[in-house]
């Protein structure tokens, strides 16, 4: 029987790793993710997880050790956040290019300067072009579930790409919630053992991995990553179906909430989706036709799902905790890309909020809805709306 325990998302991530039985964990501590490797090192020390725990001197080394271990043919895990993920940056491309299904847990945190340890999504959003699959969890249960699902997607032969699972710094990483821990046998059955057919080391089959790719081959290797990411769309659907059958919890690439007759849909990711759904209930009670949509899978970007959502509504309001300077939100840009050639499309509004741990309140969301209503009646006034900005100190 699965057991329920009260735990932080960091512990949930460590439990997910334990259940997935990686053979190598290489990690370097960083706020707010430190508890993940700390907890895993306990599991290893207590003999509950049979794995090699490599203590390294930086995140660059952590992911490099993961690449080495994965290339040797075993399941690997690591966790990081913010500057740590940024330090991994160059190796992230290598992991994807070498087609190594590494899974990383990210405690989504802002980037310096100024140094700030609190939540936004800038760290993993900035890694969107590395060839990694990206999941964003709304709560601690999702953090655990999506890590297990991430292995299943990443290791699928049609995909073979690394994956990261993000969960919001402090809002989730350090907040306790009841989390259902699935049975080991059930996870074993769901994931199976990782037996790679491509990347592994065997003296009887000498290979070169990560070799030089001349102009005659490089472009094709990039295309193969593109193709794998495209394949991931279908694989994720299959894995989410199987996940529901196995564990009883349903995941959607985009989870829609009260969208059917909604004139305004607030689109967001991560823990903010919980706040937004609560807010939708409040506004619905007031008679406002409003809905919410949560993007669980950000890479591959859910183009078809966005198109389906756009058909239902008049305004898509993107609420995001990241910024691509001079453009706006990255998810807004991707959403716009998904709809660019559609004949009919809703108004798409770009809201930047909650950067560096600033709380997103119902007052903020009221402002978003007011702007959305106004845009519907009078047109869009601003390219990018900064919500909750303290204009008085600017």
């Amino acid at each position, binding site marked *: 029987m699965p057991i329920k325990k009260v735990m932080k998302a960091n512990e949930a991530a460590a439990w997910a790793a334990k259940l997935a039985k990686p053979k190598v964990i290489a990690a370097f501590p960083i706020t707010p993710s430190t508890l993940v490797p700390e907890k895993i090192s306990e599991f290893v020390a207590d003999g509950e997880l049979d794995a090699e725990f490599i203590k390294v001197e930086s995140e660059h080394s952590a992911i490099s050790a993961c690449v080495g271990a994965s290339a040797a043919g075993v399941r690997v895990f690591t966790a990081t956040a913010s500057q740590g993920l940024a330090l991994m940056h160059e190796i992230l491309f290598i992991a994807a*290019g*070498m087609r*190594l299904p590494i899974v990383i847990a990210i405690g989504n945190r802002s980037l310096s300067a100024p140094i700030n340890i609190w939540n936004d999504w800038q760290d993993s959003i900035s890694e969107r072009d590395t060839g990694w699959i990206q999941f964003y969890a709304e709560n601690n249960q999702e953090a655990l579930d999506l890590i297990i699902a991430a292995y299943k997607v990443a290791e699928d032969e049609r995909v073979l790409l690394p994956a990261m699972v993000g969960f919001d710094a402090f809002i989730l990483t350090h907040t306790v919630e009841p989390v259902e821990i699935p049975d080991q046998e059930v996870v074993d059955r769901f994931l199976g053992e990782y037996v790679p057919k*491509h*990347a592994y080391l065997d003296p009887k089959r000498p*290979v*070169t*991995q990560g*070799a030089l790719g001349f102009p005659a081959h490089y472009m094709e290797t990039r295309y*193969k990553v593109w193709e794998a990411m495209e394949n991931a769309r279908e694989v994720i659907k299959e894995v989410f179906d199987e996940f529901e059958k196995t564990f009883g919890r349903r995941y959607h690439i985009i989870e829609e909430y009260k969208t059917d007759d909604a004139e305004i849909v607030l689109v967001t990711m991560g823990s903010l989706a919980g706040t937004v759904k609560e807010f939708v209930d409040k506004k619905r009670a007031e008679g406002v036709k409003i809905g919410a949509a949560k993007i669980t899978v950000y890479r591959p970007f859910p183009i078809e799902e966005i198109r389906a959502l756009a058909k239902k509504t008049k305004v898509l309001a993107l609420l995001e905790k990241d910024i691509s300077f001079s453009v706006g939100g990255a998810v807004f840009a991707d959403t716009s890309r998904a709809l660019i050639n559609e004949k009919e499309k809703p108004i798409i509004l770009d809201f930047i909020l909650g950067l560096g741990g600033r709380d997103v309140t119902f007052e903020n969301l009221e402002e978003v809805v007011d702007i959305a209503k106004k845009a519907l009646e009078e047109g869009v006034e601003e390219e990018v709306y900064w919500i909750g900005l303290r204009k008085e100190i600017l």
Partner: protein
Amino acid sequence: MAESPFKADIERVEKEYSEKMTPGAIVYLPGSSVVNKTGSWRVFMPEFHKDKCVRCYLCYIYCPEPAIYLDEENYPIFDYDYCKGCGVCANECPTKAIVMVREKK
């Protein structure tokens, strides 16, 4: 030099990799670098004067590539497919039997 000692390897590698891209661009076949003919990098090439050669093997030993082999009589033969023209052989040759001359393209 009559024929590259790597001819069979080159043919094998070229056949193997001309068909399909491997996942992660993994090179399954050891020794595949034979197809990467580094001789094209050369600016100066070693010119061999057999009359001065005392068959000391120093060029053969020092060649970093190694792109110098020995023939049946232990005279050096130069593999211009891979010789990068570094000049180490000419520098080491005690009798100046090897001279670096500008490559004629």
